[in-house]
């Protein structure tokens, strides 16, 4: 059986306009990489939004795989701006192969 190790997977929903803030925080936490995936629409406490491109209000997911301690470092770095910047952060444990990479 192939050997896997446990890492944290963190997913951050963020406005496109401030993606850079998030990826800079990931880099600063010493995490090796990140991946951005598109989002179509959503509803939160602010009401419904559509893919309202052209407008600076559309969102993306930034996801990153990191060891526990770096993940916590990232979560702590982002915590203060979660509310002001309207970020949504979730994380959970995943198994990865080639653990030395993350």
């Amino acid at each position, binding site marked *: 059986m192939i050997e896997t190790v446990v890492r944290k997977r963190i997913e951050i929903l963020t406005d496109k306009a401030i993606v850079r803030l998030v990826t800079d925080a990931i880099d600063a936490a010493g995490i090796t990489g990140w991946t951005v995936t598109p989002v179509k629409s959503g509803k939160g406490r602010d*009401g419904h939004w559509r893919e309202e491109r052209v407008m600076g209000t559309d969102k993306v997911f930034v996801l990153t795989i990191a060891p526990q301690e770096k993940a916590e470092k990232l979560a702590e770095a982002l915590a203060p701006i979660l509310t002001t910047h309207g970020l949504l952060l979730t994380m959970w444990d995943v198994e990865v192969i080639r653990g030395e990479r993350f």
Partner: protein
Amino acid sequence: MVSLPLRNAGAKRIRMDASTLQTFTSPVVLFFVLGLLAAFARSDLAIPEALAKGMSLYLMAAIGLKGGVAVSKSGIDANVLAALGAGIAASFLLPFIAYGVLKGFAKLDRINAGAVAAHHGSVSVVTFVTAVEILEFQSKPAGGYMVAVMAAMETPAILSGLLLARGMGSKSGQSTGAMLHEVFFNASVVLLLGAFAIGMIGGEDGFSDVSPFFEAGFKGVLCLFLLDMGLIAARRLMDNRAITWRLGVLAIALPLVNGALGTCVGAVIGLDVGSAAALGVLCASASYIAVPAAMRLALPEADPGIYLTMSLSITFPFNILINIGLISALASALIGSGGPPS
């Protein structure tokens, strides 16, 4: 406010109604109305994002090229420099007026008032493009250099808005350098000025090659783009939770006043009627692309539900449907539709 050179204004009837009504048989405006109606009827009509983005790039490239070709013919004279100066000054100063009434009349807090003020000082490319079409249709073409004026007006308002929201000394989360870079090299400034330069370099000859694409298709693309803008503006308005009636009033009063101011300034500095009207429209229009993106970055605490809804769902339709007509009529009244004073 300003003493205006009202050349034979008495002899001219203000042809406001005609200009305003003409607007409504233009397919460009009718497609915008269709978009509004479809969204209000909760139809699922929608233009794919990539396409809308593509159309806006196309419109900016086309208007930039056209302006550059025009300036390659006319050259850069005192008028051009005066218009540039007036535009930059307006973009920088108009937010201060807006900020005052937003705080005083509409009771907005400092951060949100600054953000909204920045939007109204800056410009909307699509409003400008639509105005240029309507003015041409009314035989009052704006000077090609007004494209450069537009590009120059995008940015100063952002600086004033931030100044107002944050004060001089305060720190923002984002480094100022990054913000300035974002503001000066944002996609629309680069594309507008780049295409403008290409138009100037290539001139009439270079342009003839690509004009079937950039000229012949222009109005049709504008139709579909405004259809999309109508859909988006109306949907945002229906989802709105943040706009009070006082904010609604200001979203109409600001473009009215700014538009009149801009047109008057245009008349004072000696622009021809079309260019003065275009300057008025630039002052009246509010950004809903470049500035929101900058504000997300620099003032993340400001509420897009306020600034975007005001500029996109109220000011923008008001300008397209009514204010362009008013401004055009005002410019004619001030300057005379026969062109610049000879």
